[in-house]
């Protein structure tokens, strides 16, 4: 177990390094964007005086490294600062959005992970059968349409017929049940988008093992094909499967801007685009860090799970 803790510690340190690099990259990129927050806020009506007044007010006149340093020291003390545009604490701005994003990600994961694992295992079991080829072709078709296209089609079929709402409204009175119902279409869209990848990888990981001597051994022990796949192949295919699931979960958290826009879902992606458009750099930075942390943590979790499920790593002699 100590090895696991050491690995976790090491990965967390690397994760911190990654986050630092990201914050520099994002800050640098936003600095390079033409225009600044003052211009965006004042828009066309900006005059030199109002611009200068607003810049002074927002602290935009400090040199970039100073602003970065101020931001970084703030973050290290747990203070993400305030949004320049709205002067609200970023934690408040991001808080509910983060919750929404996580909800949608989990919802989609709850639909897609079991589905794709099931399909992947069945496709591996019945490889080269009609089922295998059909599910493969369908999965490929689903990922080869743009996300918004899939979303519109689902709206056409499932929302215009009155089965599900075409957009998500989250108010104080929204219960989890309501939300599960109203967020079904976005979750389904995301499910269609990520299932193919996970399913194909599951299938490939299992089939990859089917040529192993221990699989032949299991068959020679008279085990049924189902038992061979489930009991002998799947436990050994867990590492690649866990990794691909983690990768897709990270995508579900960080990459769903388009789905948010189509279903008017108040998530972090839309907030980040808004912040980029308005050059609200502290908000961009905060969300970039949240996304990156999700990515780093999920990868860490995948590594830990791969280790825990692999006896060769867990039970060293």
């Amino acid at each position, binding site marked *: 177990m100590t090895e696991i803790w050491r690995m976790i510690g090491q990965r967390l340190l690397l994760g911190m390094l990654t986050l630092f690099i990201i914050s520099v990259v994002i800050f640098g990129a936003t600095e390079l964007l033409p225009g600044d927050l003052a211009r965006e806020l004042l828009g066309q009506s900006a005059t030199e005086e109002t611009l200068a007044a607003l810049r002074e007010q927002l602290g935009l006149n400090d040199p970039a490294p100073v602003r970065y340093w101020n931001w970084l020291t703030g973050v290290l003390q747990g203070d993400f600062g305030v949004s320049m545009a709205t002067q609200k604490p970023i934690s408040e701005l991001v808080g509910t959005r983060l919750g929404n994003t996580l909800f949608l990600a989990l919802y989609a994961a709850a639909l897609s992970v079991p589905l794709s694992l099931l399909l992947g295992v069945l496709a591996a079991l019945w490889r080269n059968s009609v089922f295998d080829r059909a599910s493969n072709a369908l999965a490929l078709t689903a990922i080869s349409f743009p996300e918004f296209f899939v979303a519109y089609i689902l709206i056409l079929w499932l929302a*215009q017929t009155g089965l599900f709402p075409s957009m998500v409204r989250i108010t104080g009175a929204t219960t989890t049940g309501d939300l599960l119902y109203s967020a079904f279409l976005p979750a389904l869209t995301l499910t269609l988008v990520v299932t193919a990848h996970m399913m194909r990888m599951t299938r490939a990981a299992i089939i990859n093992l089917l040529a192993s001597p221990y699989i032949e051994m299991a068959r020679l022990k008279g085990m049924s094909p189902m038992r061979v796949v489930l009991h002998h192949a799947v436990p050994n295919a867990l590492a690649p499967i866990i990794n691909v699931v983690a990768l897709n979960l990270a995508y579900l958290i960080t990459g769903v801007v388009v789905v948010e826009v189509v279903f008017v879902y108040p998530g972090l992606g*839309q907030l980040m685009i808004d912040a980029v458009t308005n050059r609200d750099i502290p908000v961009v930075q905060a969300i970039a860090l949240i996304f990156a942390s999700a990515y780093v943590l999920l990868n860490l979790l995948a590594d830990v799970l791969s280790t825990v499920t692999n006896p060769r790593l867990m039970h060293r002699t």
Partner: protein
Amino acid sequence: MTNLTFPRGMTRRGLLKGGVALTAAGLILPAHMALAQTEPKKGGVFRVGIGHGSSTDGYDPGLWDQLFVQTFAAARHNYLIEIAADGNLVPEIAESWDSADGATWVFRIRQGVSFHSGKALTPEDVVASLNHHRGEASTSAVKPYFDPVTDIRVDGQNVVVTLNAPNADFPYLMSDYHLPVMPGTDGKIDPTSTDGCGGYVVESYEPGVQATLNRNPNYWKPDRAHFDQIVLLTILDPAARLNALMTSEVDTIDQVDPASISLLESRGVAKILSISGNAHYCFPMDARAAPFTDNNVRMALKYAFDRQELVDKILAGHGSVANDNPIGPANRYFFAGMEAKAYDPDKAKFHLKEAGMDKLEVTLSAANAAFSGAVDAAVLMSEKAAAAGITITVDRVPDDGYWDNVWMKKPFCASYWGGRPVEDQMFTTAYQSGASWNESFWSNEAFDKLLVAARSELDDAKRREMYQEMQRLVSFEGATIIPMYNNYVMALANTVATPEKVSNNWNLDGFRCVERWWFA
């Protein structure tokens, strides 16, 4: 992503006294637009899907810039003066207004109005609200309105504003959406407060997502604000807006995608409200930069494309052909008889030859941030111009940062104007030499002289003549291509009823759909 819009609407030149009707602005309702005409009924939850709004939207009225915050403001605030659906100024918080010389304006503040918080509205609140936009430190977009203001003071129930020079249009300025009356404390308003004296009280607001407001039970206007509750929703994606309307998630949407209008109508689930006004799309050329310095080049370009095609394809017919004239058919002195410019490659070639060229190559920078369909419009122009030996290279630039990096920076780009009810305002803002928003950098001595003279001319016939001459100058010598006037196109669920006249001064009935409309 975000369609950036900017404060463009201005005021209608008026008389010195409040309450008197002007010549009615043309409100053109298409024949098929027979909207439900019943007595307003109270009740219902009115949900509006708006194609604007960002999570960075602030509360500060000086920074409001798009339809979501504008409509949200109109729902919770009142202004000194309202522009009625027919274009007339009508009293709101100011019961009446008066000026002896056009330089000192006296606004009589209505009594018995209270804010949502229960605080009674006083003239001091009005002064605080106006002063928020005035002075060195102000970051308000309408700060220039107050540059000529030397003094704002309370005189009993009156607020007296003193200008350094006469301005007969000043009451129009006071109807601007940036200038709601907000509660003041020690002469200052709290710009982050949502407290107002409008028809609805804010229940919740998430910038970039939604605002929910309930009817103000103490609203002083008895015949307004009919809904029990209104919900304003930011729905940026045009298809998502359509879907929301078709699946009855919302009752009204703005900015209907032109391609969908006829399809939506044929479905019968909603009705289209298409309001023509003075809003127009345009392509300014930098008159200081070659080859646009030569009016023959500008004329060649003006003849080199098909205006009707743009109206048909970009606006899906919901608009009308403009003759490079920023003054629209809804204006008083609109020059309807001006020689029209049809698509005429030969004339374009002729003008090119006059300019000493036989072919012309220009780059047109466009983004849909300028107006929806700007890039397509540019492509259509480019296609048609080829026949005249003109190569227009369409440079699609990012929406993001369009107004900072392209507009008034690139020599030939796309732009739009919300239209001004007053000719002087339009010309002064965008066509007078050296005006800060003179996007074409056009400078014409005769035009400038006429503009000043017309402002003080009181004879209506003479004024008409002067304004028409100015329109001719802009159209035939100016540096802005104005191919079309665009309608405001909204879609309404069949249950939504509107008054017979819907304002063409801004979208969504001058932002006041929440106050003026009702469920049939």
